[in-house]
């Protein structure tokens, strides 16, 4: 669709051509399914989480379907940062979209090492830091539930790179806005909201958990209302851009996230259902803008018309 609608936005020096991205772990390293999807249409691609060393991931069963959602326990299976830059990055440079490498690690030092390695390569638009990982050195507590630990990671990484630094937050915490503020103060350029919710399913025949690791991450349309509330909460707390994520399955869902305060959105689980959903949303945004006389999609960001009386987020009953 040809139109004069402005779709682009910038983070630091990087200009993204539109506000539609694919989420980490739901699109491989970026070019695996380019037979199915024209990835040149996308604002950008968040890669599967990369760790310093390759990880084989968790034992099967890694996936369970749930009501309007799914649980996964992939266990950060990935080829490692070294193989990524050698085997994947060269080809990814051929596409007219931005690659943001998502990084997972089990210590602050590991996060730094991975970024240092990636800094040596061109073709990477920025970093998304997956802090929904256990901090192995400090008793396995999840980085992302602790604002001090998260802020420390951000401060350290900030010194290493001028590229956009995007921190991906976990929803499994009481006050996501506290964490968001801490990372904004430490120099992060943007936040991604949300990663998966902790969930579980049991096989009543065997009386065993369905997932090999007992619990796993819940994603998909089921979590959309939770994700939207978290984006709204974070948007009220920080000024840096937000990537809204969680259960987005069509243009209307995506617009809800923009209105709640997301600067851009990421499509996750629904890539598995329909690989072209993200491209459809790119076009859907333009169509919506034309139909509603909007000249820049950015006008929608945070344009929610909400009663300030209800500024404390509650699960009213």
């Amino acid at each position: 669709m040809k139109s004069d609608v402005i779709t682009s936005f910038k983070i630091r020096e990087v200009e993204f051509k539109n506000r539609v991205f694919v989420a980490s772990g739901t699109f491989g390293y970026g070019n695996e399914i380019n037979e199915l999807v024209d990835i040149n249409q996308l604002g950008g691609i968040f890669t599967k989480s990369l760790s310093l060393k390759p990880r084989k991931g968790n034992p099967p069963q890694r996936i369970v379907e749930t009501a309007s959602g799914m649980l996964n326990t992939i266990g950060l299976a990935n080829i490692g940062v070294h193989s990524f830059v050698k085997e994947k990055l060269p080809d990814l440079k051929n596409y007219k979209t931005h690659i943001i490498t998502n990084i997972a690690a089990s210590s602050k030092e590991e996060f730094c090492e991975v970024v240092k390695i990636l800094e040596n390569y061109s073709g990477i638009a920025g970093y998304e830091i997956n802090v929904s990982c256990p901090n192995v050195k400090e008793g396995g507590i999840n980085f992302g539930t602790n604002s001090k630990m998260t802020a420390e990671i951000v401060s350290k990484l900030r010194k290493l790179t001028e590229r956009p630094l995007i921190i991906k937050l976990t929803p499994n915490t009481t006050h996501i806005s506290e964490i968001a503020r801490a990372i904004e103060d430490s120099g992060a350029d943007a936040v991604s909201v949300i990663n998966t919710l902790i969930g579980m399913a049991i096989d009543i025949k065997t009386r065993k958990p369905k997932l090999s690791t007992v619990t796993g991450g819940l994603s998909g349309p089921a979590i959309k209302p939770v994700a939207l509330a978290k984006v709204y909460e974070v948007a009220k707390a920080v000024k840096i851009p937000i990537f809204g994520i969680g259960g987005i399955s069509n243009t209307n869902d995506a617009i809800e996230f923009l209105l709640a305060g997301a600067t851009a959105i990421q499509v996750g689980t629904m890539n598995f259902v329909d690989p072209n959903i993200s491209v459809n949303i790119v076009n859907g945004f333009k169509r919506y803008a034309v139909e509603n006389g909007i000249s820049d999609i950015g006008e929608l960001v945070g344009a929610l018309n909400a009663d300030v009386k209800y500024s404390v987020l509650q699960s009213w009953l």
Partner: protein
Amino acid sequence: MIQQVCEVQSCQEVAEKIFRLRFYSEEISNSVKPGQFVNILASENGVGPLLRRPFSVSRIVDNSLDILFHAVGVGTTILSRKRKGDNIDVLGPLGNSFKIDGDYETAIIVAGGIGVAPFPFLSTELIKKGKTIYTLLGFRSSNFKYSSYLKNTQIATDDGSEGFKGNVIQLLEKFFENNKGIKSAKIFACGPTVMLKSLAKHACEKNICCEISLEGQMACGVGICQGCPVEKNNVDMDYALVCKDGPIFLADQIKL
């Protein structure tokens, strides 16, 4: 590999709760190889299960494909109600395929239950290559039997309602006893994990090459989610992906 909305041409119950659905796709039917599968969306407008459902391609007829499936849950029940003219969203062909070439003479097909699905297609291709085929099928009972478009078929049923009373592995043992002359055989198999496990042991003992088609929970079906691992039999014990490295594996390659 393409994503396509395809027209259903027929859907029939061919045995108890076993359905054969035919849909039209010039592109997929012309590129698919035996053992490959398609990933079908069983929902419409968000009504139905979230994830696609994988099915082996069972047969090619002109520019159409048959899938053969057991209506076990939500998705397969919805598919079983499709009628001529309805549309389904199909992703395929996916995965690797049976290796038909090679200097074996006899193909022994071993299938348990709905594991029979990929073999009509495989048989057609084996015949083209001039292989001799024996087909051993096991079912719980004769009312679940599907044995069309197969060659030299022998049936086992758990309840003895048809053919040999027992499971298909016992039938295979009997088959080997009766056919001591067979040499340079290759086994192609699909069925429940217990059956494949026991088969793998037999094949190993007899030193017969054995390819098996695996099932398993999938999300994407195209190798991007890492959701369908199966443990390899190598020293690292790392994982292969059923949807991309499989669904066809050498029986001794993987830990069942």
